[in-house]
């Protein structure tokens, strides 16, 4: 069999990639199938039913925590990505400067302590502010999640910046484009894959951040993970499979809309 000599092809890589995708989707597939299961059990199939979706929709708490989780993840990941992009621009492609080490340490710090420790520290600190100011809104959770997401957003963006050469930017500067113009028209578009990767990472990290949320939340601020945590010691119903399936659907929907919009622009 004659194959094109593709420069990009590396032997075996495609097979490993396909295997990886297969492994990723096998449990997801099971989860989706069992969300339509008639039985209350996740181990036996007893026929098709939508009753778990109905149950999930009728459960106000499940509805509330799902929406809150999505909102929090979107907000925190957006903030974190913006802040991380700025920080990445400030720390790459520059000579060493005073305090650089400290900046790296600070940015990566949330990664390096277990969530329970950050959780306890934040609980004590935020509770004091809550008592002082009387404000108990979502701001604390947004701040905590944003801080937690920054290193996850920062690293891919910086990795991108480091592999980007700056010929184009220098060319633009030579053509008397101002720094802002250069940034918007040259740097930002080139940086987009990194920003995009950072945003996605931040989003999924925030969706999963359970221990921090558990300690920071005030009354009425449960998210899906803290709600799930409460179930861990008791019973996990297929209702949860239904919710998970809906989240998957939502992610596919978001992706589709994103592509339709970007196609239109292109």
């Amino acid at each position: 069999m004659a194959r094109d000599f593709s420069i990009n092809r590396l032997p075996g890589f495609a097979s490993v990639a396909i295997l990886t995708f297969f492994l990723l989707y096998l449990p997801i597939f099971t989860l989706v199938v069992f969300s339509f299961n008639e039985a209350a059990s996740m181990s036996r199939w007893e026929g098709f039913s939508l009753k778990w979706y109905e149950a999930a929709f009728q459960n106000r708490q499940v509805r509330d925590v799902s929406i809150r989780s999505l909102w929090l993840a979107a907000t925190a990941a957006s903030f974190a990505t913006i802040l991380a992009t700025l920080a990445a621009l400030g720390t790459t492609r520059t000579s060493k400067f005073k305090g650089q080490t400290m900046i790296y340490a600070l940015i990566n710090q949330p990664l390096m302590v277990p969530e329970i420790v950050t959780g306890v520290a934040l609980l004590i600190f935020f509770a004091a502010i809550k008592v002082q100011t009387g404000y108990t809104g979502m701001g604390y959770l947004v701040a905590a999640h944003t801080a937690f997401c920054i290193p996850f957003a920062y690293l891919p963006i910086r990795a991108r910046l480091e592999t980007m050469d700056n010929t184009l930017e220098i060319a633009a500067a030579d053509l008397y484009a101002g720094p802002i113009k250069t940034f918007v028209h040259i740097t930002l578009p080139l940086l987009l894959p990194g920003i995009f990767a950072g945003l996605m990472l931040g989003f999924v990290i925030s969706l999963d951040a359970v221990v921090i949320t558990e300690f920071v939340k005030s009354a009425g601020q449960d998210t899906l993970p803290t709600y799930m945590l409460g179930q861990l010691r008791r019973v996990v119903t297929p209702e949860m499979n239904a919710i998970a399936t809906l989240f998957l659907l939502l992610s596919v929907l978001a992706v589709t809309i994103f592509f339709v919009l970007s196609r239109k622009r292109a």
Partner: protein
Amino acid sequence: MTRSAFRLTLMSLAVMSASITAANAQGVLNLYNWGNYTPPELLEKFTAETGIRVTLTDFDSNETALTRVRQGGHGFDIVVPSNNVIPVWIEEGLIQPLDLSVVTNFDNIAPQWVDVPFDPGREYTVPWAWGTTGVIVNTSLYDGDINTSDIFLNPPPALQGRVNVIPEMSDIITMAIYAAGGESCTTDRDVLRTVRDTLVSAKQHWIAMDYGTVDAYAAGDIGAGVYWNGASMRARLQNSDLAYGYPQEGFPVWMDNAAVLTDAPNPEAAMKFINFILEPEHAAMISNYARYSNGILGSEAYLDPEMKGAPEIDVPDALVGAGRFSESCSAEATNIYTQIWTELLQ
């Protein structure tokens, strides 16, 4: 591409934020309870009768709840801690005495649950639900006596390598202490030496130390284990081979209790809710949902048929004496237990 994505994000944020931050409005009651423990119908009915909206927030352990409330600024009105930590809540002034002018259903509490050691005379708390920690066994694997802690401390050959033990330090150490003939919270070194040796040698027969889902028992992945009675009942309803045993050496009895927080933003509504759950019909709702008993007189009439007389709910007369209220142990005892536990799980 970015601009449209950005606009989309903004739009969805605006839509969503409307539904996020409505928790602290007037006439809202904030309930802080164990996860998956509060029937939604109960809250809906309370709102329908009183016009007070209820917001439910979950906690996953007594320690988290205590830490959270102790630090202040939480916004909760009612909390539902377990019996062993209630004295701490009272001592630290975190919960307030019941207002008997509102809690008129107080007399519905079954007499044996009024003068309890953790809150003598029930000045602060009312029962939410109670249960036991025992053993669950798949009787198709082993049909011997299951009312013994040997099921996990010295498993019969048929169950070896198939036992799951819940990763709850205090429950497991306490059960091992009972089996060694000691009292809960003991610091007696001889007893504790036996406890450690028993646990270390038993561990080789355990397949897991996990909370173990009902499914894992029902599907036969796990053959036996330490489990709570309510969860055990759910498992049996899926697989009739499963049976719940009450270790005759001694088993922990626990009770979760509702109380109004001292710094509750809405104490009037909170007292109304306390009174509300003392109605037999409402107590039965809690039981039917969580599959645990409630300690309220007259609630039996409203229980689901499969709860009535269920072996997981009715403790056999011969074994009632073996049940003991779990306690909160001294710092010294806890320190030793943590060391044994760390050694066991290293």
